C-alpha cells in the first residue's frame, strides 16, 4: 500500500481533499493542490515567482502548466474513480492556448474513456475566465496494479 493510497483513504473519511497533495513532494514544492469547495474537484496552482518563464510579459512557464495539468488528471483519477493503484502516466499532449499571467491557475479534468488497464483523461486550465482556457491536455494513464502486470512492467 502506498503512502498516497493511504492518504487517499484518510482524505475520503475527512473530506480534506487538499491533503492529497501533501503526499507528493513535487506538488508541495509547486504549490499544486486539489480543492472541492464548489462540489467539483478542481486543482489549483498557487502563484509564486518561481513559476515565471517569461519575465518580460510576464508569463508563467509552459512547463509548469503541463505539470499542473498532469497533477490535475492524477488527483481526478484518485478522487473520482475507484482506482486501487496510483495511476502511471504513459503520455501527455499539452496545447498552449494563451499566455498565463502571474496569478493562480485552476484546472479541471474528466475521464474521456475508462478502460480496464488504460484511462484517457482530458484536462483544462484557466485563470479568471473558465471559458478562456490557458492550456488543455490529453493524457493516458495505466491503472493496472503491479501484481496484474506482466513481468516486463
Amino acid at each position, binding site marked *: 500500500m502506498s503512502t498516497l493510497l493511504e492518504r487517499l483513504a484518510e482524505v475520503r473519511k475527512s473530506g480534506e481533499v487538499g491533503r492529497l497533495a501533501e503526499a507528493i513532494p513535487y506538488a508541495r*514544492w509547486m504549490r499544486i493542490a486539489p480543492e472541492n469547495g464548489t462540489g467539483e474537484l478542481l486543482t489549483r496552482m498557487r502563484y509564486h515567482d518561481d513559476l515565471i518563464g517569461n519575465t518580460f510579459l510576464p508569463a508563467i*512557464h509552459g512547463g509548469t502548466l503541463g505539470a499542473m495539468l498532469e497533477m490535475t488528471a492524477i488527483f481526478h483519477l484518485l478522487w473520482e474513480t475507484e482506482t486501487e493503484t496510483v495511476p502511471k502516466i504513459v503520455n501527455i499532449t499539452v496545447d498552449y492556448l494563451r499566455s498565463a499571467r502571474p496569478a493562480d491557475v485552476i484546472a479541471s479534468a474528466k475521464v474521456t474513456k475508462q478502460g480496464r488497464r488504460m484511462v484517457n483523461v482530458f484536462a483544462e486550465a484557466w485563470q479568471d475566465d473558465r471559458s478562456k482556457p490557458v492550456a488543455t491536455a490529453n493524457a493516458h494513464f495505466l491503472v493496472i496494479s503491479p501484481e496484474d502486470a506482466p513481468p516486463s512492467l
Partner: protein
Amino acid sequence: MKPPLTTREERLAFFQQWFSDTIPHSRALGIRIVDARRGFAAMRLEWRPDLVGNPETGVLAGGPLTALLDGCCGMAVATMLKEPKPFATLDLRIDYVKPATPGQAVIAEAECYRVTHSVAFTRAFAHHGDAKDPIAAAAGTFMLGTKGEVIRPQTVGAEAKL
C-alpha cells in the same frame, strides 16, 4: 559588438547566463546548460527530493521533466533564429517510456529540425547519459512572432552567432 565566443566553455557560460539564469522557473529547478549549437540544445536537471512524484520510490514527478523538455526544445528553437523574435510553445507531447532512476540526474537533448515563417518544430529525448535508453521522448512545436518583446533567452542564437 562583443567578440565571437571561441571556446566551448565560453559558449556554455554564455548560454547558462542568457538562457537558464534569466528564466526564473529554470533557475528554480537548477537546470544547467550542457551543450548548445545551431539547432541543438542539451540541459541537465539534478535529482532532488522536492521534485519527487512518488515518495515510495523516489522517482521524479513528470512535471520537472515537462519543464526541462519544454525549456530544452525552446532553446533549440532560439539557436536557429538569426533574427531574434518572440516565440511561445504551441503544443508539447511527452511519452514517458521508462521511470527515471531515483538519485540520478536527467539529461535532455533537443533538436529543432525545421523552422518556417510562423512555426518551429522540435523533438527531444530525456535520459540518464545514454540517449539510446531514454526516460522520455518529446515533440514540441513553437509559434514564432508571438506578442510581446523578444526576451534575452530568445536571442541566444543571434548573439552567439551560431
